[in-house]
């Protein structure tokens, strides 16, 4: 049985790279502490593959033919896509892919009734993949990555229950279809509250963010699925906050585990609340806190 050895959720706001240097010291401290801890945990986990779920941000497909989940099957993932480079302000990177695991994932999810799409060509990555890859040193670690870009913003959006079900199928795939000695890392990339392109572009819902971080770290998935509705996420920042659904996929895969946050910060220029959670894959919570 393959094992999930790392699971985390973290934001990917572009300002975390291009605008970090100019941010106040206390903001920088939370950002660097969060991503350094995640980078260390990934390295310690000695994972054979990292599967990253992240909002596609309408980067790869037209609005009238929009996949809910798009798997990157390339042997090599290069980013960021040309137009996003000055916006993110980051260097080019190349991360090894895993076409074999990506293909197995596509087939495994299909067999489990989960419609995904997959593409052999390099996907167009913006901040969704670029920020976590660079801030957690995935590019330098040599760990192969399978990116899965998901629909968090084009109605109808797969809601928290659907994303959790996708995560449960993912967990089943990992444990039953992958080689028994394989070590798998999972990252949900996105959030916290933000409203990109909206009239409240600079709005950050600090109360929502702190509530969400505590809930995500609690391991209480029943409460999370009851309360983390699309309506609540839209109220906390339309078109952006719902990318926390990438975290929900990861939670569905790992089941109820306690997590640890490395602080929370807001900075107007980031236009996004910042904080991550690393879940303890060695812990087991009482079964009643998980969702059957």
């Amino acid at each position, binding site marked *: 049985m393959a094992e999930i050895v790392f699971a985390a959720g973290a934001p990917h706001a*572009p300002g975390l790279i291009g605008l970090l240097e100019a941010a106040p010291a206390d903001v920088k401290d939370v950002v660097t502490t969060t991503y350094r801890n995640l980078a260390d945990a990934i390295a310690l986990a000695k994972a054979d593959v990292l599967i990253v779920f992240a909002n596609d941000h*309408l980067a790869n497909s037209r*609005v*009238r033919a929009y996949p809910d989940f798009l798997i990157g099957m390339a042997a090599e993932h290069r980013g960021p896509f040309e*137009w996003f480079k000055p916006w993110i302000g980051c260097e080019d990177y190349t991360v090894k892919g895993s076409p074999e695991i990506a293909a197995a994932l596509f087939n495994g999810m299909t067999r489990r009734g989960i419609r995904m799409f997959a593409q052999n060509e390099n996907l167009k990555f913006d901040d969704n993949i670029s920020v976590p890859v660079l801030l957690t040193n995935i590019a330098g670690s040599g760990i192969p990555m399978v990116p899965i870009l998901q629909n968090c913003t084009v109605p109808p959006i797969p809601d928290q229950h659907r994303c959790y079900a996708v995560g449960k199928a993912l967990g089943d795939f990992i444990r039953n279809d992958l080689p028994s000695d394989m070590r798998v890392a999972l990252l949900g990339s996105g959030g916290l509250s933000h409203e990109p*392109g909206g*009239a409240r572009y600079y709005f950050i819902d600090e109360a929502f963010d702190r509530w969400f971080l505590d809930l995500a770290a609690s391991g209480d998935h029943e409460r999370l699925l009851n309360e983390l509705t699309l309506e609540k996420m839209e109220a906390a920042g339309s*078109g952006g906050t719902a990318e926390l659904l990438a975290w929900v996929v990861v939670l569905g895969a790992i089941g109820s585990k306690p997590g640890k946050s490395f602080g929370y910060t807001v900075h107007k220029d980031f236009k996004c609340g910042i904080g991550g959670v690393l879940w303890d894959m060695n812990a087991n919570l009482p079964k009643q806190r998980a969702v059957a």
Partner: protein
Amino acid sequence: MGLEKFNPALAIHDLIQDLKWSVALREEFAASEASVLDRYPLRADERHAIETRNFLALYDMGLHPYLGGQFARLIFGNEAGKGATIAVNKLVESLQGKGSVA
């Protein structure tokens, strides 16, 4: 102002995607915007709103806000902390009631 007005049939969605994906089209748009707009089946009010940089009107028609933010960057600037900040401020100014920010 969220996703409730989203109208995926609007041709501006394709225009924005194509501009993002093609350096050559961006250069052509900068040099001769009208000739690029001619190639898309835009509604008259949709085209007028594009030409007058009226994001508020475009959102009322159903432009997806995420692409609206990117369209503002395509027009006003895309560089972190510089043109992108101008773009965000122009967009917000339009959406908060000003309408045209040409």
